[in-house]
């Protein structure tokens, strides 16, 4: 079949894809054996290298204009496994590398091995788990085989769950257990769907499946099961119960990585499933359901965020709401309509902007909780003048969530808004505006007392460089809004033109 030959010519830069995976995995193994302070040093050395590899992949992809492919074991699929990098995965690789590096540099103060101790539990576990989250994310973004993606999802779950209960308090253990049960339910149903697809078509490679799939009951049941499983892991509205306690209880750097990246991995697979594996399937009903759930998430998450008294829980519920925006892309970006490209770029940009903005907000909230000793919103009076950089970073992140002009959040929501108006599906537009208002509401609820001029007693003034990390992330969230049109063409690389068209 011409598709096989075309799609699997191992491109030149293929080995970069392998490097992006080998670095963090080797880091995990070395950190466990060397242990103690070495774990932290290994992580802090590998992270900038990882950012470099991710950027190199993006540049190579930009120059070649076609997805990078690398067949593992010298075997092309269907027998072997292929790694594929297209526009969406390259952008997510760079985002993951940057956010994890920022979280790593932020967490040096919390998870440094104390003096006089060769090795302590929390630091060693944190640095190994951080590299494991990063390895799993890279594999999810590059994987080309559905079973390989299942193992990567499990690796991600085993890295993220212990992060939630790293400080061992009872409520964090309950939150981690609920998160683990939801995640296991999700991955076993994903595997069930993959089994049905293998039973029907004899391969699990994404490109080969896309060529062979046609609408039949087995494919509908498989798609339904896989989507349900991945929705449980993405914490979309009806299945979001585990997210707020889990993300609010994790340490600051941990919750930044969890909210910004871990939740996006399963969303990435839903996009991979509906846009790369099942493009030939009529998707109207499925996309409408996903978008309806997304809208419910926006409204429900926003209202609940308004009613929280703790800062970290407010941000966690805001994650539930912002995830809803991502699913509005499904009814708009599918199909060969003129607005589909805008909706696709809007959805992807929302993923990126939420990653950077939410990471900045969680790091800022961590700094506030450390300095004040608590994170009750009611008692945040006067924290603004006391910690200007932190609250400014929090505000910039909030800007992106609300979708106000200078931020990338605005650009993403504007693209989705424009696409929904052109498509005539105005309910999504109304929901987005309502979501923006709700976001404005809960950001104002935090900033109003924070910026009041009363003096506040800080237990420990925050370190300058840690505030800088949060600020850099928030600035990136804003700068992405000024991305040139070439950036949006880059996002289109590897996007399967729907209804039977292949790249």
């Amino acid at each position, binding site marked *: 079949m011409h598709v096989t030959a075309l799609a699997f010519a191992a491109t030149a830069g293929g080995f970069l894809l392998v490097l992006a995976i080998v670095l963090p995995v080797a880091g995990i193994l070395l950190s466990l054996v060397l242990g103690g302070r070495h774990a932290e040093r290994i992580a802090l050395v590998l992270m900038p290298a990882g950012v470099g590899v991710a950027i190199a992949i993006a540049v190579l992809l930009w120059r070649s204009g076609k997805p990078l492919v690398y067949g593992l074991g010298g075997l092309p699929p269907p*027998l072997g496994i292929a790694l594929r990098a297209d526009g969406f995965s390259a952008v997510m690789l760079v985002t993951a590398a940057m956010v994890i590096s920022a979280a790593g540099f932020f967490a040096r103060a919390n998870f440094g091995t104390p003096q006089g101790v060769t090795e302590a539990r929390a630091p060693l576990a944190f640095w190994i788990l951080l590299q494991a989250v990063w390895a799993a994310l890279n594999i999810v973004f590059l994987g080309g085989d559905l079973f390989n993606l299942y193992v990567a999802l499990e690796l991600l779950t085993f890295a993220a769950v212990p992060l939630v209960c790293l400080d061992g308090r009872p409520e964090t253990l309950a939150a981690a257990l609920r998160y*683990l049960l939801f995640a296991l339910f999700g991955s076993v149903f994903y595997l069930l769907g993959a089994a049905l697809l293998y039973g029907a078509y004899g391969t699990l490679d994404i490109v080969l499946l896309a060529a062979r799939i046609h609408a039949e009951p087995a494919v509908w049941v498989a798609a339904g099961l896989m989507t349900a499983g991945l929705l449980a892991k993405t914490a979309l509205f009806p299945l979001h119960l585990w997210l707020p306690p889990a993300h*609010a209880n994790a*340490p600051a750097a941990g919750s930044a990585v969890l909210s910004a990246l871990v939740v996006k991995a399963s969303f990435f697979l839903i996009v991979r499933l509906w846009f790369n594996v099942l493009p030939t399937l009529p998707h109207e009903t499925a996309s409408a359901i996903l978008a309806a759930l997304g809208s419910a998430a926006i409204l429900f998450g926003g209202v609940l965020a308004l009613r929280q008294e703790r800062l970290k829980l407010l941000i966690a519920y805001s994650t539930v709401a912002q995830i809803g925006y991502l699913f509005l892309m499904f009814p708009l970006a599918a199909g060969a309509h003129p607005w589909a490209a805008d909706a696709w770029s809007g959805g992807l940009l929302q993923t990126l902007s939420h990653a950077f903005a939410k990471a900045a907000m969680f790091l800022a909230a961590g700094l506030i909780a450390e300095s004040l000793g608590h994170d009750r919103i009611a008692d945040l009076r006067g924290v603004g003048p006391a910690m200007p950089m932190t609250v400014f970073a929090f505000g910039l992140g909030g800007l992106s969530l609300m979708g106000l002009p200078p931020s990338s959040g605005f650009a993403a929501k504007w693209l989705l808004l424009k696409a929904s108006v052109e498509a005539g599906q105005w309910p999504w537009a109304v929901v987005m505006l309502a979501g923006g208002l709700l976001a404005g509401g809960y950001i104002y609820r935090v900033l109003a007392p924070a910026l009041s001029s009363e003096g506040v007693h800080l237990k420990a003034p925050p370190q300058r460089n840690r505030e800088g990390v949060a600020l850099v992330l928030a600035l990136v969230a804003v700068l992405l809004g000024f991305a040139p049109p070439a950036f949006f063409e880059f996002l289109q690389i590897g996007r399967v033109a729907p209804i039977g068209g292949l790249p």
Partner: protein
Amino acid sequence: MSAPTLAGLIGAALVGLGLYGLITNPQPLRKILAFNLIGSGVFLLFGIIARKGAAAGFVADPVPQAMVITGIVVAFSASALAIALVLRLFQETGRVTLRPDASAGPPANGADT
């Protein structure tokens, strides 16, 4: 009623049964048990697909069988992590329940790192 078809029906029944146990049983230990049941049902599904894919001199298609072996080991490590969490939760609180108590967030006074 060949063996693969029968095993397929068992697999489907096990998934349904395990899902029921996962949803209704409040105890985390029973939920882990139900999760293992769903897992074995899914692996049975891979098993019958492998058996029906017998060709080229093999009694069954080796690829799904290899996936099942990997799956069993991953499911075991998932159960191990879940059991360790349940036991630690029991050690800390004396109770084993998933119901979030009042302050689901970090405590009001403890500094949260």
